[in-house]
């Protein structure tokens, strides 16, 4: 990682005494040179290696765990509860709240965590609002909590995917399946599903080597798109950086293509989960049928033996009470 830790010297009035005062544009350039770079224009539009599992926690009704490459995210959806705030009650729709938390070990850069949590939470709420049938739980609020276990880029899109699965697992009605992905452009290279290193270079260093030449504009920017593909709807499309409209549409199309293939995966995971649940239900049913049968036998016995005899045969001696 490209990071500078400054040791402040209070005697020197806060001035730094480190040799390496700060990163220079050259540092950023070297760091970029050392990265694994894909071809300038992507050839394959596909997601990273993905693992999704619904229903990982037994304590809440809807939960999902997702690994997107090295990014690991856990989402929890609790059943809707009544609204506390009276002012939000006047809207004729349910209220959706998303909270994002970083695990203490998720990221090396602890300083910016509260701000990122707030930003991600707000963007996640905006992305999930279109997909949930909010008219169905009037005067109720739905809380979605996301825990980030490991951060290797694409946090927002992974969180959206994971929440989409958790919502279905919880049995909340949704209009469609939602999938999301990220693409970014930096120094004319298009990165699909950018890693944490690329995102850091893009957002924290803010491409500071780019502006040395004011006449030419070097675009840089990141797009996160969430889509619902049955009717090709875009639920959220968040962009930051500096892009021409043409590049914007190009990146948008890349992310939409990745969303399509992710959708197949999510769908597969959910159908498998439903089958699994069906089998569990069948087993439960068989067990309860067995129990019914046992009880039926006892009742039959009771009928044939008569009450007194039945009680006598079923009395077990209490070892602590001496028989009179």
């Amino acid at each position: 990682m490209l990071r500078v830790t400054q040791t402040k010297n209070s005697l020197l009035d806060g001035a730094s005494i480190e040799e390496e005062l700060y990163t220079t544009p050259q540092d950023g350039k070297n760091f970029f040179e050392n990265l694994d770079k894909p071809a300038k224009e992507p050839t394959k539009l596909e997601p990273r290696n993905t693992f999704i599992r619904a229903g990982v926690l037994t304590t809440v009704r809807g939960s999902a765990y997702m690994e997107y490459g090295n990014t690991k995210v856990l989402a929890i959806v609790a059943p809707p509860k009544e609204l506390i705030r009276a002012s939000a009650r006047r809207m004729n729709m349910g209220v959706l709240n998303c909270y994002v938390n970083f695990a203490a070990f998720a990221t090396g850069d602890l300083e910016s965590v509260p701000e990122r949590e707030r930003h991600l939470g707000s963007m996640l709420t905006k992305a999930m609002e279109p997909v949930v049938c909010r008219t169905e739980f009037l005067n109720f609020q739905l809380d979605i909590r996301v825990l980030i276990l490991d951060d290797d880029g694409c946090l927002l899109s992974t969180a959206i995917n994971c929440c989409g699965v958790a919502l279905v697992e919880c049995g909340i009605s949704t209009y469609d399946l939602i999938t999301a992905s990220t693409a970014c452009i930096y120094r004319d290279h298009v990165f699909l599903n950018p890693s944490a290193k690329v995102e850091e270079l893009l957002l924290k260093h803010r491409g500071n080597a780019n502006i040395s030449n004011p006449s030419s504009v070097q675009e840089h920017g990141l797009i996160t798109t969430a889509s619902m593909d049955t009717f090709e709807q875009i639920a959220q499309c968040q962009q930051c950086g500096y892009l021409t409209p043409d590049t914007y549409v190009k990146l948008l199309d890349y992310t939409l293509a990745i969303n399509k293939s992710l959708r197949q995966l999510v769908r597969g995971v959910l159908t498998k989960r439903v089958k699994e649940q069906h089998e569990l239900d069948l087993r439960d049913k068989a067990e309860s049928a067995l129990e019914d049968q046992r009880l039926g036998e006892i009742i039959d016995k009771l009928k044939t033996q008569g009450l007194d005899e039945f009680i006598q045969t079923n009395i077990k001696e209490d070892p602590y009470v001496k028989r009179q």
Partner: protein
Amino acid sequence: MAYVALSEAEKTYILHGVEDDFRCDGRSRRDYRPMELETGLVSNASGSARLRLANTDILVGVKTEIDVPNPLTPEFGKLEFFVDCSANATPEFEGRGGSDLAQELVLSLQNAYESPLAFDYRTLCLIPGQQCWKLYIDILILECGGNLHDAVSLAAKAALFNTKLPRVTATLLDAGITDLIISDNPYDCTRIGIETVPLLVTVCKIGDYSLVDPSAEEEVCSTVSVVVSVSMRNGAPYLSGTHLTGGGAMHRDTMRNCLQLGLSIGEHLDKLLIKMLKQEQERVGPKRPQIVGFLK
């Protein structure tokens, strides 16, 4: 957004107006409501602006402070946005009611101003790696009449234009420490370039049509809006941050059309704003405009 109670009949009326390209207040879908803009009316701030867009009333003050730059970006100054939703605007903002909306506005502004191409952070640099200006942009929402994103960004840009940074000279002391001397003369100041500073344009979708500058009533009728941040550089529009808001979804082609509309409106708006600001600045001497403030 602020809540307005509308019946189904009223909503239908607004919807039909939008379909016929003749809105309730007589505008077409591409028109803005009348604006009043005044700069330099807060004497305690380095720069200030007040914008009234029909019923929406915004007051922006810019304060300056000297800070240490981030080691990752030694040549850059800092910006910090703060939005306060006054309870005067709507009763809903009482207590902590306005904090969600305030946070949304702060995040959109931060996102739009983040790129060094959108705002030249180098003009805020004093000594690279050691001292820089930090600007606090405090935004006060006095009245809520719809279209807050646009109004806030316009007022912020005007306030930045009005901001006067005092000239600073540095002397080198022992052990490599620098001492800053800030000029006493209030007219000895530097300005901030605002050519590329982005404007936010909200493109609102009502029924099958998209329109700009929705009033509070029209916002209630809309399903989804795109907030497009337009930054002009070398005469060409660039996107410096967009997102969808309003709890709906849209098709890719609709989105493209909305972007196009937002970009062309933003370009026009930017040109007009800069023209008006320059005009106000050039009126000196006896022609100097009187500060009107909130008295009409």
